[in-house]
């Protein structure tokens, strides 16, 4: 009987091969009391551990095809949601919330003005550019 770390120095290596459902209070308990703790000599011990524990063992699955595909899909989803314009949900929320309609419309109108200003700029440049190139000919 000694007090020392169990598990023969399983120092973090070899991870990533077990997958279990998200932990709850019970999951924590299972992690702890089913495969840790003092085991008394078999000849004085009678185990009454029943059939229900078998279903717990069955939760342990090996990371493989399913895990890989799940991660890939998670990345795929991540990509899509990251590409969404950040302001859009807020804007939609404003439009549907009645009281903010006016404000939203104001913002959209302001945006339109800016766009036309910008277009005006571009027009000016375009007009200048041909002139310049004409001059070069």
């Amino acid at each position, binding site marked *: *009987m*000694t*007090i*020392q*770390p*169990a*598990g023969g120095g*399983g*120092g*973090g290596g*070899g*991870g*990533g091969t*077990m*997958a*279990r459902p*998200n*932990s709850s*209070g*019970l*999951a*924590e*308990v*299972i*992690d*702890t*009391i*089913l*495969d*840790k*703790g*003092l*085991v*008394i*000599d*078999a000849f*004085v*011990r*009678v*185990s*009454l*551990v*029943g*059939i*229900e*524990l078998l279903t717990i063992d069955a939760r342990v699955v090996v*990371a493989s*095809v399913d*895990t*890989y*595909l*799940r*991660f*890939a*899909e*998670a*990345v*795929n989803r*991540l990509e899509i949601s*990251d590409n969404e314009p950040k302001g859009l949900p807020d804007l939609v929320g404003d439009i549907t919330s009645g009281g903010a309609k006016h404000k939203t419309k104001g913002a959209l109108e302001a945006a339109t003005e800016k766009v036309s200003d910008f277009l005006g700029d571009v027009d000016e440049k375009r007009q200048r550019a041909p002139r310049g190139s004409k001059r070069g000919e």
Partner: protein
Amino acid sequence: MTDTTADERTPEEQGVTGSTGIYVYGIVPGDVEAESHATGVGDPPSDVSVVRSGEIAALVSEIPVDRPLGTPDDLKAHAELLDGTAAVAPVLPLRFGAVLSDEDAVSEELLDAHRDEFEAALNELEGKAQFVVKARYDERAVLSEILEENADAARLREEIRDKPEDATRDARMMLGEIITQSIEAKRNEDTQRVVDALEDLEPMVNVRQPTHDEDAAHVAVLIELSRQGDLEDIVRSLAEEWEGRAEMDLLGPMAAYDFVMKRAPED
């Protein structure tokens, strides 16, 4: 529901002569008393009592042997009794499911037969308790980290982007494998970070196997109970450092499940 399926082996075949057995939770110093409201395994929950032999004792319950143990309530009762005890006295937790035939067997075959070992171990545990530090990655955060750091992962992401699963299966497998390996590397690094951060507590450390694909760390430590406040401070500052990246959890005080073992190899 499954009560009757336990009778394939008769109690006699299991070495139990009566219709009841003595369930053993753990070993404690002889001056420990069971609290009157303490309840144990079984349905209805059994009473908890103490079998003493000299300076050591066992926390036990008398239970009927005609039904198997292992319901969630049984598991929790075992853990709660031991963890509650660990907060006030040293305790050697037995693995779930140990039953002896009667109280004489407990005092003679269990306590008397291992007296020296149990006494020495209880002395070592005096004033100490186990805690478990867990960290779990935030999926979005850890995937984003990997995509930034790993060019192959980023390339494969583009390859599968908006394409049906069937048409990109190979790329998805490769991407998933890279992610699994990257998380494993991060886990090793972050687990070491946790262990280093706890060093001041002079703990005994058992790095546990991960129990989830996205575990960042899973570490059991045995420390002086008086340092619990320091432990909480350390875990809190790690949690702040990793905010948005990983979620931290601290469990305990609990019995020293991760640190008790037989000296001689036995199975």
